[in-house]
Each structure stands twice: as structure tokens, then as C-alpha cells.
């Protein structure tokens, strides 16, 4: 059987490529780590892939705004091929630095009336520091996002210095209206954090942790689903295990982070193969 192929970008300071490739493999895809230059130099053809992954890291050192230079490079050199990839109904996910790349490319939010325009930004955390912590996330069930289908809530780690979602109020209103807000930082009972630190770890407006485009096929998020690839990644696993009798304390057949990747793979199997 033909397998769904995922392209995991590497090089120039990206650094979550190995575990993201692993997560996609676990989810049933044939995941390839592909260097930015292999793409730009035509050694690899986008057309052969179904899912394009901008994974986390510090592309180009992030010194001129996170994701800015990589976005410029891809847009400048690969614009046409990338548009064809999208026109073919294929999937794009940007995680952390990848989310920053997607907003700088203008692919997100990708309002139809202003395609390719930068409308939102991920800027410095209000706390002023890089921060690594787990967050609770509530998923918008109305969102068209194919990656989060069937997921209502999820816990994931965030690890970033520039993750504050910022946009003028009218843009945020539009995002909400159109259900493009996919995930929000939440309190322990999975209701939106309403800006409260550290539940909302960076001061993101509207507690926004991830958004999609109007088709739901392009998804960007700050948290790292690939870092929740096994139940032992969860910070509470020794506690939960002690309170239950199960070998696998959470009772999930697969780690919740992997569901996001499995959704993508299944979508491609059903629609693209």
C-alpha cells in the first residue's frame, strides 16, 4: 500500500526534526528529514509529499525575529511549488518555530480576502524569558482544522521565547468568528486561561496557542505535540501511575501528542492517496 509521505524540514538551526519524524512514523507516515537546501536546489520535489512540516528550532538563529528568515527564503525560492502543494489539497503543519514561519509567510491566518499577507505575529513572551512548561489546551470543536479532529483537550509542552500571539483586535475577532482559532491555553479544568500566567505562558492575546487557515489544512501551533510521543513524557506520569492500577497510567492506546499526527496521516489516506 502506498504510504503517506511527510517532509520534515531540517537544517539552518531547526532542531525538532528527529522527534517530529519519529512522531509521523509512529502515526503511520513515511517521514523524511529533508534539508532546506535539498528543497531549494531541487534535489527533493515537494510534489512527492503529502504533508509539509515546519518543525521547531531556531531557524537562522532567530536573530531577526523568529522564523522570519526561513519564511523569506521559502517564499522567495519556493513560492510557486509551495502554492501548487497547497492547491493540491495537501497539509502543512508548523510547530513552534514552524508556526512563526507560517505566520511570516502569510500562510496563516491566510484570510481569503488578503492571501499571503502577514496579519498576526508571535512576539516576545510577556514574562521576558524563554520558558519550558507543560500547558493545558482546549480545542475548538468548531474549527475546520484536520489535525485536531476528535480531540477536545490536550496537554503539551511549550518551549519558546517568542510565542506571544499578537494581532490587532479586528483580526482576532475575525479569527474567532471564522473558527480559525484551533487551540487555546487553558486552566486545569480546560477552560481558557483568560490571559492568566502561567496557564497562558506568554501573554498570547485570546489565549491563542494555535490557528489554522480557512480550509483547516494549514495548522500552526506553539506547543510541541511531537514531545508527547510516549506517556512517560508527561510530567505527572509517576503520580498518575501511582493512583491507578494500569501499566499505562493514562489509558490511552497512543500518546496524545501523536493523535495530531495520526489525524493528518489519516486525512491524507482518505483524501490524497
Amino acid at each position, binding site marked *: 500500500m502506498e504510504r503517506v509521505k511527510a517532509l520534515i524540514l531540517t537544517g539552518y538551526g531547526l532542531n525538532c526534526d528527529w522527534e517530529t519524524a519519529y512522531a509521523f512514523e509512529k502515526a503511520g507516515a513515511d517521514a523524511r528529514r529533508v534539508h532546506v537546501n535539498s528543497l531549494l536546489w531541487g534535489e527533493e520535489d515537494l510534489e512527492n509529499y503529502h504533508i509539509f512540516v515546519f518543525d521547531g528550532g531556531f531557524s537562522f538563529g532567530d536573530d531577526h525575529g523568529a522564523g522570519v*528568515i526561513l519564511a523569506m527564503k521559502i517564499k522567495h525560492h519556493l513560492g510557486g511549488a509551495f502554492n501548487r502543494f497547497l492547491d493540491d489539497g495537501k497539509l502543512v503543519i508548523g510547530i513552534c518555530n514552524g508556526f512563526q514561519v507560517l505566520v511570516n509567510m502569510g500562510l496563516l491566518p491566510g484570510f481569503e480576502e488578503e492571501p499571503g499577507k502577514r496579519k498576526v505575529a508571535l512576539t516576545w513572551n510577556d514574562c521576558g524569558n524563554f520558558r519550558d512548561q507543560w500547558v493545558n489546551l482546549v480545542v475548538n470543536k468548531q474549527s475546520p482544522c484536520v489535525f485536531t479532529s476528535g480531540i477536545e483537550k490536550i496537554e503539551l509542552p511549550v518551549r519558546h521565547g517568542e510565542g506571544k500571539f499578537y494581532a490587532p483586535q479586528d483580526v482576532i475577532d475575525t479569527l474567532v468568528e471564522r473558527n480559525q482559532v484551533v487551540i487555546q491555553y487553558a486552566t486545569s479544568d480546560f477552560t481558557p486561561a483568560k490571559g492568566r500566567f502561567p496557564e497562558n505562558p506568554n501573554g498570547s492575546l485570546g489565549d491563542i496557542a494555535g490557528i489554522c487557515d480557512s480550509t483547516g489544512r494549514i495548522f500552526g501551533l506553539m506547543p510541541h505535540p511531537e514531545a508527547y510521543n510516549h506517556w512517560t513524557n508527561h510530567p505527572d506520569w509517576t503520580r498518575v501511575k501511582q493512583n491507578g492500577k494500569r501499566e499505562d497510567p493514562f489509558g490511552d492506546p497512543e500518546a496524545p501528542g501523536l493523535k495530531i499526527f495520526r489525524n493528518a496521516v489519516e486525512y491524507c489516506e482518505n483524501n490524497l492517496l
Partner: protein
Amino acid sequence: MAARLEITLKPELFDAEGESILRKASDYFNFSLQKVRVIHVLTIDARLGKDELEAIRREIFTNPVTQLSSYEPVARDFDWIIWVGFRPGVRDTAGSVAMEAITDYLDYSFSDDEAVYTSKIYQINAPELTREDVEQIAKELLANDTIQQWKIFPRAKWDEKNGIGIIIPRVILNREPTVTVFPLESDEELARLSAERNLALHPNDIPVIRKYFLDPEVRESRKKVGLFYPTDVELEYISQARSDHCNHNTFRGKFHYSDLSTGEKVVVDNLFKTCIEKPTLELQKKKDWVISVLWDNAGVAKFDDENNYVITGETHNSPSNIEAYGGALTGIVGVYRDPMGTGKGAKLIAGMYGYCVGPRDYDGDLKPRLHPRRLLDGIIEGVRDGGNKSGIPTPFGNLLFHPSYLGKCLVYVTAVGIMPATIHGKPSHEKTTSDGDLIVMCGGRVGKDGIHGVTASSEIYSEHTPAGHVQIGDPYTQKKMHDFLLEARDEGLIEFITDNGGGGLSSSVGESARFSGGAYVELDRVPLKYEGLDQWEIWVSESQERMTVAVKPENWERFKTLSKKHAVESTVIGKYTSNGKLHITYEGKTCAYIDIDFLQAGFPQWEFEAEWKSPEQRGLSEPVLSTPSDFRKLFHEFLSSPNICSREWITRQYDHEVQGTSVIKHLGGRRRDVPNDAAVLCPILGSTRGLALTQAINPTYSAIDTYWMIAATIDEAVRRLIAVGAQFDKIGGVDNFCWPNIQYDPINNPDGKYKAAQLVRANWALRDICEAYEIPLLSGKDSMYIDGNLPGRYGEKHKVSGLPAMQFTASGIVKDVRLCQTMDFKKEGEAIYVLGNTGDELGGSEYYCFLGYTGLNVPKLDPQQTIPLYRALQAAMEEKLVTSCKSINRGGLGVSIALAAFAGEVGAELDLGRVPTNESLTSEKILFSESCGRFIVTVSRDKRGEFESLMADLPVSLVGQTLKSRRVLRILDKTGKLILNEPLENLKHSWKKPFARLG
């Protein structure tokens, strides 16, 4: 014509960087600023037209959602402007990335005299501040004069049109590279010239060096290549290789040790050989998992059947003490190159840190170059950026405050990597160079970085003089190189690899050439950052992010192609030979020709007088103290003390989960804010085998006896590993010594003989305990001279020597990570056990330090007591009998039980009368003794029988239970009197409070 692009956040946006400066200005100097906004400056020194400049402004450097930018000054409505930029020659990564982006976008190629420089403008609103205040903010908060320059503009003097002006920190040396030769008239003359040139040749080495160059055979062979007297390239090579840093002359020295209390005298010939090498090699014979130790850049141990892990530790004290951020950043990025240069190269999987600094709130009379507060902030941020930007998790670390580190801070950095056991069917830990292999330099370019200063007369200072000596690591460049080299390794293109650290090419080529038996290097092929370096400077420069690789000529094309793909510069600078010579040329002319085995030949051993005085002879005694009557107040204040309280503000800044391998995190418990004993990773995704990592450091015990300091420190690391579930039989160690100068001098180091004896005793303990615990020392380093001379009130200088320290890093295999445990109490109504005897051992403890004492009774480890206990506990954990496990460390049982209880938010009752002790002890001694080999463990009611039978005949007692519903810590003394009954929430608040606002 240069242009200056200024970029700033839109005024309605919150400026987090500005806000953090505002906070620090208040924290450091008590200044109240109203507002700080940061403007990022790009000075583009290139022949770009107006349209091109506008295009890059709009398309690359300005985010239309959040930023405003202009080629005109953008500062408005301020009281002061501070501009801060790099000094010439300082690594400006953001500037080079900007060039990369401009090149890409405009298809523009920068010529050698063009560049982009980044700098910052701080726009400050604070009408009350005087110029002096602003100078202080610039100098002590925003900039460091070793690498940066700054300018201050008051509102009244601001030029609206030109702003800060155009400042171009370009290096212009304007000199022809020159080789200098050194006449060999006499030993004295060579010693004088060496001192004049800062060559740092050891006086004892000078006759050996002269003898070599005067040898008729040597002279004859040198004559053939046009050399006579030794050149500066050659003497620099010798000096580097013979330095204490590279050659460990102190540890390899001869110690005349006498114990003044017993009259016993003994000569210890070579601490390294007798206390480190010998025991480790013997253990290697016994333990097949010890793969490669003591010769390469890092040690190699077996992880599983297919993979080996690689580990090493370093210190970067002196550079961090001068420039905290840059020094620490360079330290962590530098130590990451060690696993990359071990065997055929390893992938990095973890980094760790240990910091020892003066008190954060120090306000005494001594004036360290950087106040501990600023120093610590800089160190934390340097290691953060180095680790995070490398994509390597930083899962564990230490921080210790002690006034003795005001003289010099300690910055420990540890790196862990992993590599397949075999590559193309050959063991990956083996490597060699052969005649004909190309010498390839990969990574960054060479500048004056890290080169010792020469005499003032040979270099006249100007605004274009490079700020040599201090380096700033560049994790971005190194990450690209890391990815490239792993790919080259997997294709079998690497014969040998090593990093360029201390000594630069001189060390890396010099050492790798010993394998093939010679090397030929053309220095003019080495890519430079700027022209005008002398040959010797190219040879010894410590410019960062470089590796030296041996590549077969037939593999060079492929190697070069991969290098290009990864945007890494790789250059052939020569080839390995087998003629026994290190032959260096510049533009065809020989500038060094020296026998490769010369360094092995007959250099005299360093010698030290070592005199031990027992603690009693030094007048140490136990303090006379009675039992406190207010344990509540004591607990609150003790938990708030700087060495006990929460460090979450540091831990959270470090990405400890990248690579998706995290199993036990540094912070755990119900609110995920209390430290675990060790970190556990699953480095091979999909496998459940784990690697547990931890570190310990206890220099306060050194004030009593360094032997027991080392013993306790090793034991702490071991018990931390056992507490999370590592296997006792598969623990490896890394010893990182930091010691004050041990060379006796009646004026400058009057207690040098005592410090030398401390070092000898420390090594004896290292040997004894590693033998007893069967811990091979996979790697280790020593850093001497942790002394500083600090100005006091009246201009007098005080020598401050740091307490002798060893950070011990331990790594252990976890058979199945699903059996790991954490320190937090999990459930109500469980049995609490204390494992291991508590003794009257508070000498050097946190409790005594807290009350202003040193004491005498330092914790004394007895491995015969602890080993059976560790094995039994490991078995109990494997049998899943234990629901939480915490090793008892700094602060003793009292602190440990408080941490475990408030971490789990489960109340606990502790009966001091049931704690296993060697003798009858008072309450505070039971609570705060720091005896080795102890744990707090909880066991559910139904497993108690099984647990107790496993622990039969061991010093293990049921001391209390976790409480139903009441979230309090209750402690009963031996008479049954309740001496503490305090809500956990309050205790935790005290513990978290001191540094809470830094998070």
C-alpha cells in the same frame, strides 16, 4: 555608503526586553525608570541602492504586524539614549545572518570590506537619572566593556537627523603577517623573551626546549627547510601543549605530602595515574560496558546493544568571570564539541550546568569585576542560549552561593551524546589519522579570538583593534556543523575528528598528527575573519565552532558537497604525513618544523610541597548549640535560605524537553515545581531503556576535609541516581575539579602547601570511593587557580580563593523507564521510611552554615554500609514496592521531607524517635545532619511486608505516614512532643519566595 536601519516595536506593544531592563535597573541599582524601549539597529555597510535598502527593510527586517522601522532615527520622547554595539572582531551572529538573508533576497554578494553589524539603542524615560546613573546602567547592566562599546546621549544633545550616527566596528589591522624568531643565547634570555611575549613557558621547560633546538641533528634537519632559531609558531605550539590546561601538569605532578598531625610522609607521583587512570582501567577490565576512556575528548559507555553514550564535563570559569554571558555561552557550546569530536562523532542528547557564585545580594566591601547578581544572570542566560539554540535539552543543573566564589565564579558545563556502536561495520569509538589523509577545518573562521595578549608595544589600540581574548560562542553555526558532521559520519567520510578548543589548530592538529606520525599544514589556506593575523595567531587562535577532521582524498568531493548543503565552510589546510614532523608553512615558506614526539620527551614533572593539618589542628570544633525552641520559624527561614530555596526561575528558561526524550524532568511534583533527584532520558525514541543523569557539588565540606568532601559528593550523585531508578552496577562518573592555586609562595600563596594537601586527599577519596562503588571515571577535567584579587574599600587588594570543589556528574542506565520514580509523596495513608543511618554529621552542613558555623563532624561515607542498601532499594524499585523516593541531600532530612511533602501536596508525619541513628541525637541533628547514604521512601500499606523483608538487617525504619486530608508537615521529637505542625502551602511559599520575582 553605509545605512543604519532602526527597528522597534509599535508603541502599543508591550516591550518585554525593555521591561526586563527596567526590572533589573531597579533590582541592581534601585533606580526607578518609567519606561525602557529597545530599538534594534542594523548598520549595513554595503553598496546597496535606495530601492534595495527599502526592499530589505520591508521584506526581511520589519514585521508589519508588530514593528516600525526606518533609516532615520526612530527614537521619540525620551530622557536618555544608550547605544550599545560590539567592539570590532567580536562575533556578531545576527550580523552575519543578516548578510546571509540580504545575499539571498537581493542576490547580492558582499565584498570583503562590506558587512552588516547589529547593535541596540535603549530609549529610556527617567527624568530623575543623572548622567552618572545612566553610565552605570550602560556599564553594569547593558554592556560589558570587554566585548562591547557604548554611547550615551541625553535628550538635550540628541541629533534628530543623524541619531547615533554611523558606527562601523570593522577590524582593520593593516599589517603584514610576520614570523618572529627567538635567539637561544641562554635559558635566562629565552625566559625573558617568553615573558615579554606572554608565551607562558614554564621555567623548568626552558632548558629542555633550548636543548632540543640546539641539538646538532635537529639543527641540520631544520636547516634544510630554512629554519634556525625557533619561531614564535613553534614556541606557541610548545607552550600550548605544555600548558596546565592541556597537559594537566598539576594532576601529573609529584607531591611531597606530609601529614603534620601524624608525622607521616609520603611521595605521591602523579595523581592522575594513581587515582584516576589506574582504577578506571582496572574497572574497564571488569565491566564490558566501559567502551573508551581516558584518551579521547569524552568517555564512551555502552547504552544498549546498538548504541553507546558519550559524556564529558568542562569548566569555563575565567572567561565567565570577565564576560558572564559570552563566557558561559562559549563554555556550553564548547563542551558540546567534545562528544562531537569523540570517536567518529556523537549526536548531542543533553547538557547540564553547575554554577558557584558569590551571594546574590552581596553588599560587602570587596568589588568583584561583575557583581554576583549580574554575573549569575549573565551565566544563566549564556548557558540558556547555548543549549536552547543548539536543540539540546538541558535537563539538570546546580547552583551554589558561597562568598569564596566572589574571587572567581565556577561555571561547570556537561555534555552527553549518543552514537551507534558501529558505523559501516567498524566500532564508532575508534579513529585514527593516516599518511595522506587531508586535514580539513570545518565550521567558523579564524580571528584573534581567545589569543593571549602580546606586549602592549606590538599592538597599538585603535577603534578598529579587535577585542581578542574573549569569545562569544555561536550555537547557530555550530548546530549546522553538528548536523553536517553526523551526516558525513554516517556516510563513512570521517577518519578522525576532534574539536578546536583550547590551543586551536595547534592542539587539534598537533594531537591528531600523533596517530599518523606527522602533519603538513599550509597556514595561508586557513580561512580568516579578517586579514592581518600573524602566522602564530592563526595557529593558536581559539575562534569557536571549528572541528578538525581527517578525510581520505577520495572522499573529499562528497564531504565538500555535504558541507555545502549544510551551509558549513570546510577547507583543506594540509595533510597528515608519517615523517615524524609537524611541518607548517605560510605562502610556501616554512614557519615550523618540529618533531611530533618532542612533547613526549623528558619535560620535567611539576613538584609540589603538600602539608596536611587535621581539622583539629586547624582549630575546628563543633559549635555549642542547643535545640531550637521555634522550629516553625526555623523551617520557614531555612527553606528560604539561598542554597535551599527554589531555583525554578533558572530551570524554566532551559529547554529540557527538545528531542522528545524526557522521562523524569528536573522539576516534578503536583505543581511541577520541585526538583527531582536526577533527570532521566530515553535517548532512543521507541525504546524504554533510559539514561539517568545527575550532578552533585559540596564544597563547604572542603573547609573541614577534602577527602570527605569528595566522598560525600560522589555518594550524593550515586544516591540521586538510585532514587530515580538507575542500576547501581552501571554508573559512570565524570570528575570536574576546581581548585585554588596550590603552588606555595610565602607572600602570594602562604597556604599553598595546605591547598596542595587538600588536592592529594581529594584524589585519594576519588580513588577509594570509585573503587568501592566500582564507578569508572568516564571523563574528567581539572581547572586550577580559582582565585581572584579583589579591591577593597581603600584600594587594597584581597586575594579570595574559592573553596576547593569537585562537581561529580553521574550517569546510570535505567533498564526500563516505566519503573522510574520521583521524589514527591503520591498518596495519603502510606508508610514513610527512612533508609540509612543518621549520624552526628553536621560539619559543613547547610544548617551550620546558616547559623554561621563550620563545625568539625563532616559526613563520613562508609561504602560497606551504603552498597547493600543501594542494592536493596534498587530491587524494591524494580519490584514496584516504592511509591516515591527521595535521596536526602543538602539541608538533611528536614528539608528533604518538606520538599517531598509539598511537592506531592500530601501531608506527612515524621517521628524523630524512629529515625535510624548511630547514636542518640537531638532533634535538630536528626533533622539537619547531612550523613551520606540516606533516602525517604513511601510504600503503600499492602506492600509494607514485602518491602520490609527486602530491607531486613539494613538501617531502615518506618518513621511515619502520609496523612489523610491534612496537608501539613507534623514532626514529633523523641519524647513525642509536636515540634512542627505547619501547612505545606506555607512551607512551600517560604521555599519559593526568595527568587520568585525573577521567574
